[in-house]
């Protein structure tokens, strides 16, 4: 199955890596992400690995919400952008936290 995660975003990739490699309390997990992790038998450390090493695509509008997609080794982590006060044209160097919305296998 082909996946379309949007365009590769090197600046946002750098920002996500910077945050994921910094203090862990800057990475938030939503209740939905918890549920999907349990349902799909994925644990936080795997998600963390994806955030640290993955490529970020987007952000793009999904069901009226601005989301970016982090992809690494068969794992797809969707992170919230709009809820953190950013938009598609933001300066990603100012991003200081990550909010994980959901996690999926590819």
């Amino acid at each position, binding site marked *: 199955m082909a996946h379309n995660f949007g365009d590769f975003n090197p600046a946002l990739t750098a920002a996500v890596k910077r945050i994921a490699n910094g203090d862990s309390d800057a990475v*938030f997990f939503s209740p939905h992400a918890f549920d999907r992790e349990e349902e799909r038998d994925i644990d936080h450390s795997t998600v963390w690995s994806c955030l640290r090493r993955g490529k970020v695509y987007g952000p793009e509008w999904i069901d009226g919400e601005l989301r970016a997609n982090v992809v690494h080794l068969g794992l797809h982590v969707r992170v919230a952008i709009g809820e953190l006060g950013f938009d598609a044209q933001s300066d990603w160097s100012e991003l200081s936290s990550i909010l*994980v919305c959901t996690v999926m296998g590819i």
Partner: protein
Amino acid sequence: MIQFAGCGLDNVYLKDGFKTMEFKGGKAYSYVDIKGLYLAIGRSLALSRHPLSGREFRFLRNALQWSQTEAGATLDKTCQAVAKWEKGVNPVARADGHVIRLAWLRRFDQGSIVRMVNGMFGDHPARSVDAYIFSRIEGVWTSVDHDWPVLDRLSAVQRVDVSGDAQLTVDSDDSVYEIDAQNEYALEELMP
């Protein structure tokens, strides 16, 4: 107190050391020093004495970054056997649980290997752990579950002043343990 289900275990709870953010009517959570938290959980599992559950085995295996095949090779089992343990189809053999505990301690906490080995041969019955509870104490993730005889016992042993007697008797709560001076010396050699 919140449940820390994200580690793959359903009986880990945090008293503090987390932050919350409102998100879509619910709460999103982040954790302080998650690496330290994973180490504290691993140490608790490694020093416990009950037969490991499949999820607990998987937690330690993941921390060691072993594949199921690598774990199976170490334990002289097939990767399918390991997969069945982790899915809960078959119970983890007690001895295999001890081996992966030792492997974890060897990698992350060599100073506690003697504690673990003493616990293996301890007199107390191995009780299952209903809940692992952790708290940030002086900036370090610490287990606040004191329901482990092996830890109580060793903390008592460490308080003993070695007087050179051939035999030492150590009182620990309601039980009495005896160790000889030579073993005490070996213990001090290995403790950090």
